[in-house]
């Protein structure tokens, strides 16, 4: 918990409302904050994350763009370089790829290539990501690993309403460009008490959700639901899991994970994205190096299958609590 937050008035919000509240808080506190994206104006976005913001802050500060993701990103980078604080929405993370060049070649390298003469640090890109909504190939992807291989970016993924507001406020005010992926599967399902006021959760710091002694489970976003469920299952057979919610993927909190694995001797990382080249690989590679002598079993990765995201086969594709549970048991039995 962040200091001072304890005393704040809270209300019950779902993750989507928490995002909306963060945007509202940011826009009311700083004139320079601007929201842009497809359908985010009058309509408030296809998920309604920007509801009422145009009403409140005017068409100049919350506006629809033409249908072009590369344009949205280019435009937002320019806005940020000028001194505004743009929050660009990409309607689905699956549609972020036309903007890939603007993100990895431009936003990520803006400060570096100019020797800090210019920067676009004010930029935040929001995009709903992940499966669980019968979305098939193009409304389900988890593209975080692509961005985590890009120095100059920060990558953040909340897993609850409380996190969503605190991390998004921190992202908007962070002096570096931030890619903020929102787990749309739990947009409405994740409900909790959220401070009505202004608070930030620091970027780059993981949260230990559950302390345990036998194995460390690491994840982020909607996958935390599956991980927590698996940890509960494991507890019923006497396995004590330490659960870590990474929250920030770039940079990520190596210390917290390494300390935990040093203690438990075992690590499992889970994400929805396909296995090969996914971010679990990076975590495994880092931790096997830092905790080599503590490891009692191979680091286990429970992830999506190496296929495009399917539709009717989704339940098979997804790394659910049962697959995680089985991997926990296998790790303990190693």
């Amino acid at each position: 918990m962040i200091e001072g937050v304890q005393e704040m008035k809270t209300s019950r919000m779902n993750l989507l409302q928490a995002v909306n509240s963060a945007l509202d808080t940011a826009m009311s506190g700083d004139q320079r904050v601007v929201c842009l994206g497809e359908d985010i104006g009058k309509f408030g976005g296809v998920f309604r994350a920007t509801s009422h913001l145009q009403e409140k802050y005017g068409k100049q500060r919350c506006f629809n763009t033409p249908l072009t993701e590369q344009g949205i990103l280019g435009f937002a980078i320019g806005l940020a370089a000028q001194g505004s604080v743009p929050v660009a929405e990409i309607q689905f993370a699956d549609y972020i790829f036309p903007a890939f060049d603007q993100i990895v070649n431009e936003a990520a390298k803006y400060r570096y290539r100019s020797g800090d003469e210019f920067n676009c640090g004010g930029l935040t890109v929001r995009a709903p990501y992940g499966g669980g909504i019968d979305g098939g190939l193009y409304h389900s992807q988890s593209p975080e690993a692509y961005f985590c291989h890009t120095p100059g970016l920060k990558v953040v993924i909340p897993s609850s309403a409380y996190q969503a507001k605190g991390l998004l406020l921190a992202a908007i005010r962070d002096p570096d460009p931030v890619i903020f992926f929102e787990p749309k599967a739990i947009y409405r399902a994740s409900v909790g008490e959220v401070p009505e006021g202004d608070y930030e959760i620091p970027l780059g710091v993981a949260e230990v959700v559950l302390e345990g002694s036998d194995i460390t489970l690491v994840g982020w976003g909607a996958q935390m639901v599956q991980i927590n469920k698996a940890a509960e299952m494991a507890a019923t057979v006497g396995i004590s899991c330490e659960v870590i919610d990474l929250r920030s993927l770039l940079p990520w909190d190596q210390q917290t994970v390494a300390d935990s694995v040093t203690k438990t001797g075992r690590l499992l990382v889970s994400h929805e994205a396909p296995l090969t080249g996914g971010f679990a690989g990076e975590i495994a590679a880092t931790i096997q190096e830092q905790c080599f002598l503590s490891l009692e079993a191979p680091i286990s990765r429970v992830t999506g299958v190496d296929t495009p995201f399917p539709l009717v086969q989704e339940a098979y594709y997804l790394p659910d609590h049962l697959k995680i549970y089985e991997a926990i048991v296998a790790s303990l039995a190693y």
Partner: protein
Amino acid sequence: MAIDNHAEVTSSLAFLDSAALRIPTLSLLQADGSLTTGAKAPPLHQKLAEKLYRDMLYIRCLDERMVGAQRQGRLSFYLTCTGEEAAVAGTIAAFQPEDMVMAQYREQLALRFRGFSTAEFMNQLFSNAQDVGKGRQMPVHYGSRKLNFMTISSPLATQIPQAAGYAYGQKLSGQDACTLCYFGEGAASEGDFHAGLNMAAVLNCPVVFVARNNGYAISTPASEQYAGDGIAARGIGYGIKTIRVDGNDILAVYAAALEARKIALNNSCPVLIETMSYRLGAHSTSDDPSGYRSAEEEQQWRQKDPITRMKNWLIKQQWWQEEVDQELQKSFRSEILQELKAAEKRPKPALDTLISDVYKTPPAHLLRQLTDLESHVAKYPESYQMHGEGGR
């Protein structure tokens, strides 16, 4: 030598704007089914006209039924063509079965026209084992090799440069066929639109682009999509032969499309048609238009219904009677309901469709992942019920 084609010189300082290029809208048919004065109807003979009308009516019935089915929770998603039937029917009718169609997603009428059966629609919509797409994509992402209808892809505008390339390939391999590419006025804001149209023009690709301008991209009105004179004005900029038509006027659309195909094939070049119409329904079943446009606006456009307009014309031609209409709709509806019921009961694709077709031949790592998955599923059979064939 470079640049010398820009030869005209002036010494007066003047900026041009949209007013320098006004593209009129071709319109032949009036609301009451009579031709506008001076209009010449295209050579649309009775049999084809009737087929087109039937197909339009069929799709209207299909769309209504499936929106209903979605509301009942029987399928996850649907998207209608309502309001734009003439724009699609009039274009597809002017093309040959060998011509490749690369559509956006609102062009189910083109499939119907080519003979996609009700069962085929339903198998895709219900992601069952008989879906040629193997249940992998959301409803309405149809595709058919035998009908030369490229499988729909959700990312907007990606098919536009692909259509240019496809058409180039048709020409290169000496086929007497071209490509018909549909997209919305919203998709035309994507970078791929620019790349596709410019490349088609420079590389002389026999492709006919149909920009369906229906006034909206989800909630975004055309006025927040572009500031120029629609999509047609851009065609001129690319050096593409271009026409704008009333998209609710089947005769105008058909006349333009017939000519467009001829130009594309004879001159080996792209052609652009912009069909001006209106999306009468919601964007999709996930959308509620009352959040961004007025009922009055919708009402005004409902009065321009392309199906009614065509019917009035057919009746004037004495090719149709009002009574047939009712019967036909009834029979369409019952066929659709019957096939819907059959399709939703069919088994789902087998587990191994999860990993097939990622590559032509599954590589070792995917086979291993499948094996692992199979043993896992065998351990928790009740948790993974996909009604797979052969109990897999």
